């Protein structure tokens, strides 16, 4: 197990390098010349060349890339083109907020999703099952920003239970977490349901019954631990959607998080910020996946992930 973890960590290195390369190439592929854009209209060729030299854009691409990587490893992500503040600092202010939001959403996704899935599976074809599955289908199909706006409309504007926007208190977290987590919860619910249905048919469940165990012990003790295995994979895959979803949710609820930062940076062509934000987000994603792999391996020691 330990060797497995070490091996997977080593395997993340080429992934991270690849990510950094792609992120770096954003700079190269953006239409228009950053130096020209920066210099503004009516700038002389000399000014543009000076700015280009200042930004180091006249060096060979490979050198630029290595330079970039070296700086990143030292924590220097460059400065924002908008306000010249260090990119890393700007990200770090907002990152904790996004992480809080993400964790709250995962809580919704996993707990709500799994409970719904278990109820569905154990009462297959009942009214509860059909209702849950229809709701889950809606959850996957409805756009999250629309869902978020609807939640705001009903619960904030009309019923005044939750604040309309912003971040800070527990109440602020509820609607955004629901918005972000609903899609995932729906997928987890369906996955849990089908996984439980499969587990319930397994021979070892029959053995448990033949031992004289009570039904709920059989389902929760014997069945659930096995049913969780594919669900963990699904939850892991949800991280990608989660990180992307923070962008929309933070915009709808006006939350000052990483997602919104990246979106604004893209809009204003603040390339170092975009690079830094995407790189940080990718690193988080890679390590989240690693955690899921390890968790999966813990639950299912017979699987060889090589």
């Amino acid at each position, binding site marked *: 197990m330990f*060797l497995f973890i070490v091996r997977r960590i*080593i395997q993340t290195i080429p992934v991270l390098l690849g990510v950094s390369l792609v992120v770096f190439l954003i700079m190269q592929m953006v239409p228009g010349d950053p130096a020209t854009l920066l210099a503004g209209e009516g700038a002389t060729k000399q000014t543009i060349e000076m700015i280009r030299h200042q930004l180091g854009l006249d060096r060979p691409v490979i050198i630029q890339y290595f330079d970039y990587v070296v700086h990143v490893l030292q924590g220097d992500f460059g400065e924002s083109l908008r306000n010249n503040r260090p990119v890393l600092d700007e990200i770090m202010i907002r990152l904790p907020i996004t992480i809080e939001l993400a964790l709250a959403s995962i809580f919704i996704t996993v707990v709500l999703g799994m409970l719904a899935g278990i109820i569905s599976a154990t009462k297959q074809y009942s009214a509860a099952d059909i209702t849950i599955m229809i709701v889950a289908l809606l959850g996957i199909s409805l756009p999250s920003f629309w869902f978020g706006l609807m939640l705001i409309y009903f619960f904030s504007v009309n019923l005044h239970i939750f604040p309309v926007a912003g971040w800070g208190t527990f109440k602020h977290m509820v609607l955004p977490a629901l918005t972000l987590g609903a899609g995932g919860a729906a997928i987890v619910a369906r996955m849990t349901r089908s996984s439980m249905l499969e587990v319930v048919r397994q021979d070892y469940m029959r053995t448990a019954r033949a031992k004289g165990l009570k039904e709920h012990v059989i389902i929760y003790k014997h069945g659930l631990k096995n049913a969780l295995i594919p669900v963990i994979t699904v939850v892991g895959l949800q991280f990608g959607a989660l990180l992307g979803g923070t962008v929309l949710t933070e915009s709808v609820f006006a939350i000052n998080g990483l997602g919104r930062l990246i979106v604004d940076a893209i809009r204003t062509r603040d390339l170092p910020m975009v690079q830094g934000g995407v790189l940080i987000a990718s690193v988080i994603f890679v390590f989240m996946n690693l955690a899921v792999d390890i968790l999966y391996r813990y639950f299912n020691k017979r699987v060889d992930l090589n």
Partner: protein
Amino acid sequence: MALQLVDKKILLNVDHLKQYFPIKGGLLGRTVNHVKAVDDISFQIYEGETLSIVGESGCGKSTTGRAILRLDEPTSGNIHFGEKDLLSLGKKEMRKIRKDLQVIFQDPFASLNPRQTIGQILNEALAIQNVVPKEERKARIEELLGHVGLRPEAMDRYPHEFSGGQRQRVGIARALAVDPKLIICDEAVSALDVSIQAQVLNLLKSLQKKFSLTFLFISHDLGVVRHISDRVMVMYLGKIVEIADKKSIFDNPQHPYTRALLSAIPVPNPVHKRERIILTGDVPSPIDPPSGCRFHTRCPFAIDICKSRVPELKLSEQNHQVACHIID
């Protein structure tokens, strides 16, 4: 019906075949060890005979079959089919050889594509090898179905409409479709009920006579093996422990494992007496097989040399080879 082997042609010659499956581990996922599924075996199959490979799970019998078919590439060794060196053939040439080298699998429920009709399955076999021109294929399919005891109407039905025994017949028809010389039966009747098994075994025997087929019959069931074989080869943990013609093996088994195997089978016959040898313990792992004779850890007769030296297959009587230090 004893087969005179002296002047028969060798159809398949297996020489020092090894099949090792790598196990990855360690920090960088390197190959740390191997599953020695087949560990240096050599044998021949003569034209027109049925050679059975018998043994328990993990002995390497199925792996041997798959290696011959190159479904898994052998780690080392030589396989000659007729004149051709099988392992040196490229993909294109190998595909041509497959016309002569067919297989029937164990699971009648998994080996037929559920989305194809029986007719389509058989047609595909005929088309791949181009055995008959397109116009004649339908007639040939009807003929094949007749050979295996199925009605021509079966052509338009799907596998799930048939029972296990009938699907196995389709599997046989598919193997027959291309006029093969050698058919490898990998546990072909193991998944069938006893009474169906009897029907399919009778069918295989009659087809062999009709079409001069050669069978390599892989099975764990010694009763079935007795019924259908001319010669029998017993494997244990990747090695051959005994090869002999059928009568010899059943009347006079020599290797302690063969004797234990035969004695372990419950026989519903009050008259049939045999000494009971019950082996202790489980089969060792093929990853780290015991040194010397693989069987020495469970052998009631093991002596010192058994632990250190690998016994060779030696002729002990006519048409009877055994790999055992005690017999020497």
